[in-house]
């Protein structure tokens, strides 16, 4: 088994692979991240069968925590499999913070948190803001401290999809991109290493100051979101809210009550960045 490990925010992962290539790719992309002594989670990339290790190799994601019915991916997409495996460990296993399926950036010690359905652009938006004066905190999960309510970064590799790939290729250092994976179940995917500063400061939390529900592909618009709707949406955007019980309830209600929320519709990344910055000036 080829082995790789890295620490992302408060969580450390080790990845075991029956093939060498995914581990080499991971090692290159996670070069800036610290190596843990003891990982929190184990993820394994395994061949569907002995034969499929060599002939049309197919990668099964396994690990400490798994969902049934996971479909295998071709070896060329093993990097995606590893990322999915790590996300799954967080979604199913993490209980140390209230976990929100959201992206976040930071300025002046305050966090702008963005959440929405797949395709809403929350990931791209956090990457764009991370290139323009904000500290990138994460594009997939935001962790809320159960005691203080602070947002704790989880700056894993940024997972760029489809049109977002070209948009970010125009902005970020070419050396920080992973291989382009075409035709994955989520379309084309290319990973981008977060800015060096984002990784160096990944232990630094920020106070939630604004929550946005971005939606890509609609005319420019800003809407108020009622706290009740925000609450429902956030509980559904959290895979551990119910498991955390009272601590989760307390953290979630505090977050909803103290963080202004807006829904924004936008047609382009530039439009979204200016919308977000405008609302930040006004509300944060």
């Amino acid at each position, binding site marked *: 088994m080829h082995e790789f490990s890295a620490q992302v925010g408060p969580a450390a992962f080790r990845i075991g692979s029956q093939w060498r290539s995914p581990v080499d790719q991971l090692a290159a992309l996670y070069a800036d991240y610290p190596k843990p002594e003891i990982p929190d989670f184990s993820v394994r990339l395994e061949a569907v069968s002995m034969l499929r290790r060599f002939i049309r190799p197919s990668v099964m994601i396994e690990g400490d925590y798994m969902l049934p019915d996971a479909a295998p991916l071709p070896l060329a997409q093993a990097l995606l499999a590893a990322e999915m495996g790590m996300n799954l460990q967080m979604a199913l296993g993490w209980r140390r913070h209230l976990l929100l399926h959201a992206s976040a950036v930071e300025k002046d010690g305050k966090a702008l948190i963005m959440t929405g359905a797949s395709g809403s652009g929350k990931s791209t938006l956090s990457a764009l803001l991370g290139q323009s004066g904000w500290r990138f905190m994460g594009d997939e999960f935001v962790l809320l401290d159960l005691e203080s309510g602070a947002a704790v970064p989880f700056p894993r590799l940024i997972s760029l999809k489809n049109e977002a790939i070209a948009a970010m290729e125009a902005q970020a250092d070419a050396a920080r991109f992973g291989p382009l994976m075409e035709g994955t179940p989520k379309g084309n995917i290319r990973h981008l290493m977060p800015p060096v500063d984002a990784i160096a400061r990944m232990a630094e939390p920020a106070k939630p100051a604004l929550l946005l529900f971005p939606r890509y592909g609609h005319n420019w618009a800003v809407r108020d979101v009622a706290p*009740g709707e925000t609450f*429902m949406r956030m509980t*559904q*955007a959290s895979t551990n*809210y*119910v498991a955390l019980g009272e601590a989760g309830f307390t953290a979630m209600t505090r977050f909803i009550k103290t963080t202004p929320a807006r829904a924004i519709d936008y047609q382009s990344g530039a439009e979204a960045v200016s919308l977000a910055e405008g609302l930040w000036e006004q509300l944060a």
Partner: protein
Amino acid sequence: MDQDNTENGTKTGADKLTGPTSRRALMLGAAAASAVITVRPALAQTAGSVLNCQIPVPGPHGSGMNIAADGRLVAPDTPGSFTATGQKYTGEQVKAALRGRSLPGTTYEQNRAYMNYIRRLQAGQSGFTCYASLQMPR
């Protein structure tokens, strides 16, 4: 007791000394309309159970009224508003509309008004539970 205090009903409702003249009307709603939504674990909510529900536009509480562009219920003769017949949309149709498709049989403007109406649904109104269940991130 003024209206602004109603949300504190749990803590203060029973203790308030209010004479019959100052009693406010309790919003009882209809017997058939649920007054409770229960939070379900996000991962346990399977697509199947999400997609079987439906949302009427408008629900019984707004029958006979029009829907304004921002989704509010307005009088039928309000300029710029859209008629609505209580047509029911499935969770799947609304989910697609949330992703940018139009609700079946609607014009662009009408679709936006209807979707705004759905977004404004409150607990207890027909369709809210369905809408809330569509808010799953994946």
